């Protein structure tokens, strides 16, 4: 093992480009998962029966099948029916829709941990159910969910490496190409691992700061 003999001048820009793609992929996928996840949770908790069944089915389906399989279906399977995505978009869809299922579960846990009495109180003050969710329940739930959601963000960042299998040129893919070219798998993968670690550490630091600032003093949980 010798890091110095690697051609860093050409390797570094490739890894940097891969890292940026990984960050973009993660940011867009986690946002997509956030929006879909909230809709799924609300549908599950407050929707009518068909909506409830759909939301639960979605969560079961996406949590119950491997991410790699979902990516393969989106990228290699759908073109058979004329639906075609670039590897990057396919990875966003696969990761985002997968993450939505997990995020929905986190949101549901957070919402259910808020006292039922709050919804009743809001309704008795004349708020509609929708208004109560928007103004009373969600603002609290979104704060409670931050620690669990941080986990999901970090998972998504790391699992985005699976997208190399459908040819998304993210960090893992960049590492694989460099390693395949100079046969230096060990060194290159160590560097790739180090980059993932640094990014995750920075992200978790920021999330902890947000968590502290968003804390609700004296928050009343299930009673």
């Amino acid at each position, binding site marked *: 093992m010798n890091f110095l003999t690697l051609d860093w001048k050409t390797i570094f820009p490739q890894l940097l480009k891969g890292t940026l793609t990984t960050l973009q992929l993660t940011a867009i996928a986690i946002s997509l998962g956030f929006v879909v996840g909230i809709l799924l949770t609300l549908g599950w908790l407050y929707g009518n029966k068909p909506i409830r069944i759909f939301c639960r089915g979605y969560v079961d389906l996406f949590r119950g099948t491997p991410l790699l399989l979902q990516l393969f279906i989106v990228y*290699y399977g759908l*073109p*058979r029916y004329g639906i*075609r995505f*670039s*590897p990057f978009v396919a990875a966003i869809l696969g990761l985002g829709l997968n993450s939505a299922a997990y995020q929905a579960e986190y949101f549901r846990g957070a919402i259910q941990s808020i006292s039922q009495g709050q919804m009743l109180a809001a309704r008795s003050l004349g708020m509609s159910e929708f208004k109560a969710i928007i103004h009373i329940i969600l603002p609290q739930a979104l704060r409670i969910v931050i620690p669990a959601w941080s986990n999901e963000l970090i998972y998504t960042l790391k699992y985005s490496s699976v997208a190399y*299998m459908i*040819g998304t040129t993210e960090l893992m*893919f960049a590492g*694989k*190409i460099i*390693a*395949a*070219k100079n*046969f230096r*798998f*060990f060194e290159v993968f160590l560097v790739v691992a180090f980059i993932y670690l640094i990014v995750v550490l920075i992200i978790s630091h920021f999330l902890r700061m947000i968590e502290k600032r968003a804390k609700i003093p004296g928050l009343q949980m299930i009673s």
Partner: protein
Amino acid sequence: MGRRKVVSVLMVLVWGIVLTLGISCLSLAQEKPTYKVVSDISWPPFEMVDEQGNYVGFDLDVMRAIADLKGYNIEIKDLSFDSIIPAVAAGLADIGASGFTITEEREKQVDFSNSYWTSDQAIIIRADSGLNIATALSSGRKVGAQRGTTGADWIQTNLIDQGIKVELKLYETYPLAVLDLINGNLDAVIQDEPATRASLKKQESLSLAGIIITGEEFGFLVAEGDPKGILPKINQGMAELKASGEWEKLIAQYFGD
């Protein structure tokens, strides 16, 4: 636990260890050596899985025939193409048999057997695309190749490095690149000629745009310096297979019509 109990447990342990060591030494002395062969088994007709789930193909059958002739056992493992050389170089496997072109770059990492096959690069396109080999490899086209292959290198050094802006897309396996071509995400795929002909037979929607004469020689590979002395066995084995006519039979089996 009383003291006597501890002693007897220890005795049993010691005897157990002695016995296992003894038996494994004995069996080592008697058994033929087993070499681990690694191959990217998604590349017919050189390496593939048959309907019963067995690993077959020209490379692998040659490996088995040589092992029989030369008196050793082999254990075949499926590994992604670009991981084979690092695995053999690191001693995780003994022989790489996966249609490897002998190149200078690879020679720096591993040792090759005598050449056993000559191949050129082939370009395939969708039959209805209306492209030819010139238009399929012009600026703006998307060309697929397997990661770590000489085909991918050819596109890089002879097109991209020369300023022809084709987009080279790299895949884990060759069939995935072909699938993406069929799906319309690529304009062409480059791959060694024999494997290309095999996939053309199965896919009527594809056609051959042309052959790029590269005259590449395939070799089996072992770790640098051949620490286990496998290369002479492989080279002799190949010569014997050719002399006995077995070699021609395998060629007919996998490359005949």
